[in-house]
């Protein structure tokens, strides 16, 4: 399925761009992400546990950055195997635009596919779940990046961990 959205972020474009390329930030924002480890500048190994009501599946796979046009756009794609649950893959084309000097407009176009048992059983809810997860990611990202100065990296990470904990607490 395809979906699009946009998120206004209260931070300059360069800051947002750096965050988009920061594995720690991505890890904190990808819903359910439990591990994200860079294996090269553009590749990461990832693990995530997704929980939607009674449905809970753990995925392992990789995240790749491509079509990089710094500091304006890239494609972030990931695919993971959820064992007996099946697999999931998705990619998002992310485009940044200045929205005044201190704010950035992030627009995204997401393509997501699932396979195996989750495809076979998720028919009624897959679309809205994917939409929700994509929305959550960009919302978390905006929250994480937004309120902070470009040079406050360490603090940003702390804050994001806080957010991540909140996410876990709710699950």
């Amino acid at each position: 399925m395809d979906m699009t959205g946009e998120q206004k972020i209260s931070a300059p474009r360069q800051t947002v761009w750096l965050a988009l390329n920061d594995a720690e930030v991505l890890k904190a924002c990808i819903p359910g992400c439990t591990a994200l480890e860079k294996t090269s500048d553009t590749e990461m190994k990832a693990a995530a546990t997704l929980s939607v009501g009674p449905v809970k599946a753990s995925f392992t796979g990789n995240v790749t950055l491509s079509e990089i046009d710094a500091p304006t756009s890239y494609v972030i794609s990931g695919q993971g195997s959820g064992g007996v649950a099946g697999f999931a893959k998705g990619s998002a084309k992310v485009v940044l635009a200045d929205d005044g000097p201190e704010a950035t407009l992030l627009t995204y176009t997401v393509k997501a596919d699932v396979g195996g048992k989750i495809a076979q059983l998720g028919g009624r809810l897959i679309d809205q779940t994917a939409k929700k997860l994509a929305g959550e990611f960009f919302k978390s990202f905006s929250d994480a990046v937004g309120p902070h100065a470009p040079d406050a990296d360490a603090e940003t990470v702390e804050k994001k961990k806080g957010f991540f904990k909140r996410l876990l607490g709710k699950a």
Partner: protein
Amino acid sequence: MNENIDPRALDRPNSYIGKSVPRPNLPKLVEGRGQFVDDVVLPRMVHVAFVRSPHAHAKINAINGAEALKIPGVLRIVTGRELAAICDPWVAVLVHLAGMKSAPQYPLPLERATWHGEAVAAVVAESRALAEDGIAKVDVDYDPLPAVADMETALAPTTPLIHAELGDNLCFQRTNESGDVTAAFKAAHKIVEATFHTGRHTGVTLEPRSILADYNKGSGKLVVHHSTQAPHMMQGVFAKHLRMPEGDVRVICVDVGGSYGIKVHVYPDEVATVAIAKLMGRPVKFIADRLESFGSDIHARDHRINGKMAVDAEGRITAIDIDDLTGIGPYSVYPRTSAVEGNQVINLVGGPYDFANYRAKTTVVLQNKTPTCQYRAVGHPIATTVTEGLVDLAAEALGMDPIAFRLKNLMRDDSYPRTSPAGMKFEGLSHIKSLGRLMDMIDYPLLRSEQDAMRAQGIYRGIGFAAFIELTNPSPFMYGIGGARISAQDGCTVRIDPDGSVVAATGVTEQGQGTEGIIRQIVAEAVGVPIHTVRVVTGDTQTTPYGGGTWACRGAGIGGEAALQAGIATRAAALRVASAMLQASAGTLDIVNGNIVDRATGAVRMPLAELTRIVYFRGDTLPPDLPRELMQTRHFITKEFPFAFTNGIQASWLEVDVETGLVKLLKHWVVEDCGRIINPQLVDEQVRGGVVQGIGGALYEHCAYSPEGQLLVGSMADYLVPMAAEMPDIEVGHIETPTRESLLGAKGAGEAGTAGAPAAIMNAINDALRPLKAQVLAQPFSPERILQALGKVPT
């Protein structure tokens, strides 16, 4: 050719043929005391469950079962390579389907998974639950490969090949042509044209596929309890591919919880189960669960058909031209092949109608989806949908009433025997009488006036018709001629036991349709005994004569005739003994109600049980050379016609909610001519069940796939089957044109309902929507499709 006798004319004791006698196996079933495969529990039995591919197409790099084997109770992880060492693969092609090709298929694949749901490894454990625990821990390393999902582009040069060695993704192609189609279209008064889609759907037998294989390493014998339609065929398959003598394999099926064609195929996971039993030397049970059934039971009817019909100014059909495309999955299914459905379509289109020029092409392509194969009324609903859809379009184009148009074009009842433009030989059909009978049942003018009155209130009701033919009683021309070890003949052994009761063992099988009931009726009448004294044995290769089992509506016509002949022979054998005992010529004696009687007066000369007492226990008192063979076996096969065609017509009366796109079925009528009716109630219920199965495909059932080849249905909440609340009452009428190929005269009745219902529904929906200039031609006719046709929702 035989002269049929209408048995109902002989209203004497023991005339059961033609009467609605209750089936003997119902009392146990209504008490829950049947015996389905899952009810069989054997000592040391283990369970197998399968790891299934989540990918439509993927290379299998490695299968690691180490973690699974750590679970106590998980006994073994089995892969394709291990099974290939003891089990030979199969290639499902038939030589009479010229040019057909498919790839070798193994019980478990060796290198690649080729559809979402394909079994790629087996986990054997002490219980099904533990086996599933094991599945969750088996790690399969896949490399996803591009999938061939869309049948329309399966043959495009840019599309990847599923089996490189085949050279392309084409399984089979055939054009069936007669007359001069091009000229007929050139000369046509009107031409109508449309593209139809029939939705991929599946059988959803309530009892899932079930098998329990027990191999005795000491004796070398294999006993397989199997929910199957064709025990003897499966015996041959297991023997051949597991390299065993046929006599060492016994297949038993007692009760089968629905089959409808789904259980007449060779499934790799079932062969794997048997191979694992041989490997482990202990009983192994596999009961498919619902989730895996959706991706591993065969699918059917995934067709796109472009159709054209030419008519002349008098309203006569002059030509039909169709182009059929079907996607069958990555392998043709063994041993019937998956090309037969398309082949049937091009043999059956136009079936009821009298016209001269015909061209029909079918293209059968491979794709990475669940394999398709024969399912109830193979090809018929597709052919009928196209034919009857075009017929209604032609009638509309000519401004003719659909009934008047059909009446003008249906083959005349006195025009047989004849051969159709598609090359089908018809012995005797009754289209005109059937249409007349239907008109008696429905009160057509009243329905039309009701329709008009409702339209004025904004309520859209429609009536749709579908005339059809159905292929039954197949000869070896169906499969045997192509090299398949599928028996078209069937046998029955009838014996009289010492207490005077009768046992009939038949090669045709009971799937709920009432085989045991009709065989009992036929044998009781043929021998001349009260029906309750006859027991019928089915579903055991060790105790029944070799036969083809249940498929293509052959139980009554083939199995029934064998039973009749065996019963008659047994009666004659008993009378020969009686004539010696009573010093009367055999011709003056008869058996009635279990007694030897004087044929002329009906006077009882001796109970049959007295005769058997003498035969079995005091044979010394009979003349030494007197034959006393109270057990007779007869086999039957059709001779003159490759198939016994039946015919009929259906009508559907329904209402379309034009705001929601929902279809409400109000009433359904069927007139069917299945030849001699052995049990009217059973025929009616076969027709009704068949109609509802046809309605399922027309309105609800759909094996939906993503464009990447992911199956999107896995539960019965998403795959919709017809349930009671939405189904209409179905009225059934009959015409009887017995086949003269047999004494009994019976043809088949099991698939007629399914053959005609979708077309009748489609025509009724389009009749309802006609004032709104909307039309649906793609099944299932879902609310969304109807709303799209109405322009209320964008396409």
